[in-house]
């Protein structure tokens, strides 16, 4: 009987996720407030239903009271967080908040199916992160402080990375984390992504002359080299991409972007020849089957999982995601695809895209350079990370060992992602505050003056052209 219910629940989950995804994209186009509100509330309901359906299957299969209690705890957490957030940040973006909850719910379902121990830890991390981020945006709102802090945070960041290089222990061929007393470890590169963005935003906010660009390049290069030496190549790639995009937006010089991409490509080729574990990853990407028993095992099993799951999925507890090494973090996308199905997995890609579009829209609407650059930098961090993670799981690109924000297991990843979303929320609220409005007016005025001058010139030219055309006809 359990199997039948699980099977029915599988289809219910698919319907809920598809419905949610459709909502996410219609909300991007709709402007009518009432309609939007209705979509947002529906999305909340869908998330709770999804979470409940998932846990129904989990409880039926695990047959343990622990999961019932745990489910109740999560529901309470979601309700309280939602209510608190909405009351503290009235003007925050509902859609981002909804997506946060959606990803957390999906992650909680998949992790609970994989390991009770890990999902409870993840839940604790999420609770801590939620509390922290209810406060952080307020801190960030103090503009001057934020700018000064950015420098300090940036320096602390690179020191933390260096500490990993010196103190870190090698895990899956890379030094990623520092062991803390107790059963905890911290992965600084997750947080330094944020401090890196802040630091670059400070550096580029006023000038992008050659001196400043060289200095910023040096700072970014230092981050990237430390990461490469720690063999955290996924993070190195994310930093690299973030730096290039921020430089491009600040300087508006495509040459920098193109040149940077070229340099990055050269560096990637050099890394391939210098580091054996890069070669391993590329080899496993090109053809995992001959080396399936060793290096190709992870990606091979990931593909088996996705392929066997197909569009509909095997259903929770009906597949074998545990055969995929590190399925709870770097390869959770494959695990979801296997059991919840390709449709759900595809929807996750689309919802990530919806988040990313939201990030970029927020940053484009901002006029104060520091905010604009911070928003954009975080968007690039998020977009690149999702792309590397999912692309690696489906063998589109070599696997780089990064996490899927909010879904993958990992305290550092969850907390860092909460902070990223928190900052974006604050920027979203800032779009309409006083300071920004003044800045925008100034810009608009300047642009109007320019446009006015240009317009008169254009009119004159058009008139001349018409006259010439008339003469030609005659």
């Amino acid at each position, binding site marked *: 009987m359990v199997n039948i219910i699980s099977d029915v629940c599988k289809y219910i989950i698919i319907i809920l996720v598809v419905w949610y995804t459709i909502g996410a994209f219609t909300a991007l186009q709709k402007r009518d407030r009432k309609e939007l509100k209705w979509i947002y509330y529906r999305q909340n309901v869908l998330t709770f239903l999804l979470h409940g359906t998932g846990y129904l299957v989990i409880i039926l299969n695990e047959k343990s009271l622990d999961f019932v209690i745990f489910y109740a705890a999560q529901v309470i957490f979601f309700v309280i967080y939602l209510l608190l957030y909405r009351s503290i940040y009235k003007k925050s973006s509902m859609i981002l908040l909804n997506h946060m909850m959606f990803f957390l719910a999906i992650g909680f379902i998949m992790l609970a199916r994989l390991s009770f121990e890990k999902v409870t830890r993840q839940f604790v991390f999420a609770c801590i992160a939620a509390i922290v981020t209810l406060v952080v945006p307020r801190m960030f709102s103090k503009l001057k402080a934020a700018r000064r802090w950015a420098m300090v945070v940036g320096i602390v960041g690179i020191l933390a990375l260096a500490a990993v290089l010196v103190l870190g222990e090698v895990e899956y061929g890379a030094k990623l984390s520092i062991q803390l007393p107790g059963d905890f470890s911290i992965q600084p590169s997750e947080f330094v992504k944020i401090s890196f963005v802040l630091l670059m935003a400070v550096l580029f906010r006023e000038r992008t002359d050659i001196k400043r660009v060289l200095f910023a390049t040096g700072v970014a290069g230092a981050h990237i080299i430390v990461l490469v030496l720690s063999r955290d190549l996924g993070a190195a790639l994310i930093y690299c991409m973030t730096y290039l995009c921020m430089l491009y937006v600040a300087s508006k010089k495509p040459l920098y972007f193109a040149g940077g991409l070229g340099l990055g490509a050269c560096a990637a080729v050099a890394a391939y020849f210098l580091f054996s574990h890069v070669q391993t990853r590329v080899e496993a990407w090109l053809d995992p*089957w001959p080396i399936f028993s060793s290096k190709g095992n992870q990606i091979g099993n990931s593909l088996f999982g996705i392929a066997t799951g197909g*569009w509909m999925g095997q259903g929770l507890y009906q597949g074998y995601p545990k*055969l995929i090494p590190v399925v709870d973090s770097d390869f959770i996308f494959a695990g979801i695809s296997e059991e919840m199905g390709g449709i759900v997995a595809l929807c996750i890609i689309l919802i990530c895209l919806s988040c990313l*579009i939201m990030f970029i829209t927020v940053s484009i609407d901002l006029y104060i350079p520091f905010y604009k650059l911070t928003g954009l930098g975080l968007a*690039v961090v998020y977009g690149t990370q999702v792309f590397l993670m999912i692309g690696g799981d489906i063998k*589109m690109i070599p696997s780089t060992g990064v996490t899927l924000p909010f879904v993958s297991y990992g305290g550092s990843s969850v907390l860092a992602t909460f902070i990223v979303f928190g900052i974006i929320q604050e920027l979203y609220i800032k779009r309409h505050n006083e300071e920004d409005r003044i800045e925008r007016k100034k810009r608009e005025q300047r642009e109007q003056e320019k446009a006015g001058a240009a317009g008169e010139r254009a009119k004159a030219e058009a008139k001349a052209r018409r006259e010439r055309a008339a003469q030609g006809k005659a």
Partner: protein
Amino acid sequence: MIRYIFVGMFVCLAGYFAYFVSFGSEEVIKNPLNNRINNMANIVVRGEIRDRNGETIAHTQTEEDGTETRVYNYGGVFAHPVGYMSRGLTGIESLANLDLLSSHVSFFERLVNEVMERKNVGDNVYTTMDVGLQQFCYQAMGGRKGAIVVSNPKTGEILAMVSTPGYDPNTLDADWAALTSEENQDANLLNRATQGQYPPGSTFKILTALEYMRENPDTYQDFTYECDGSMEYGDLVLACHEGHAHGTVDFKGALAQSCNGAFATMGLSLDKEKWADMCEEFGFNQELPIDLLYSKSSFVVDSESTDWDIMQSAIGQGKTMESPIHNLMITSAVANGGTMMAPYIIDHTENADGEVISKASPVQYRTVMTQEEANVLKEDMISVVAEGSGYQAACQYVQVAGKTGSAQYNSTGGMHAWFTGFAPAEDPEIALTVIIEGGGSGGEVAAPVAGSIFNYYFGGQ
């Protein structure tokens, strides 16, 4: 701009994922390394493999205590094409693994099974093979080493596939040590029909003749050659089969008598590059559209080939190597008016209630020659059986077209006996290729086997 780059990246990501799940996944699922499928056996009773008429070839027997045994009803007769599943997966057991372990029984039945805690019944796989024909071919080998493949040249359906010596899949576990020991030189586990690599010998002359026709479209019918039993070319001497002097032969006679000197002469006149290109078009040095494990065929003629290499290649010797199934594909292309079909061995899949779940359809692989070229070759192949070396392949019910081959494989005169052909010549229903390893003369040894199969098929005896 950044927005468009990222949206583009995500669209690629979603597109790649969708493509993989829709089209790329099948190949991955069928990968023998995929242990997920085998886990499905915990909830599904592996389906049956049946012949084209519904006769059971392999089924799973469940004991009272739940232990399952795979039983192969015809023992070693279907050993290679059907394969086994206890020591890795081979043959149809491997190709259709997912189908056999998928259950498409009705929702109601699943509900009942669920309540009764019974396994669901897996889908049944119908091969294109015919039990009677397969048994006849197996007997016709008479314990000799070699292979027989029979197909429908118009569709590519494989009707029979025998490779001997084989093994009994029912006792594979017990026999495994002996079969895989180093002393055993018989390669019982090798499917000679698809993985065997043999010099094609005179059966290859079909392709030499075709290339000669193409390069001499108006004059090839005027070709003549004086055969005195051996051909001398400079210092090189090439003997005809058993030193037969064929006298004056024309284009048609050269094929019918399988005159080595005539074909070596044609070969020496050919454009090496065009010839090699044509052979590649026919599948040499290329991946072939075969689902079962197979070996690639090879044909090496290039600017560095010596005259001797050319003379050898023209008669299917030298570096030329071919599997029996590839030989059959070429013969079938002649039978099918120039279109080469992709061979296939699984016809359709049914659920336990007999509803069709999936059905294969014939796939055209390539059009390798024109209808006219096929007709000329067919006429020549008819005369091979009617008045030439292949007379023993003749059938009392229908006209047979074919080609014999006696392929030397060592310097002491050892020969593989080949026959490849089809019938009825005017409207072919079956094509077949026979090889007897070390059998000697193709006309004396392989052609009679082919003849008996044609008689069985068309006369039912």
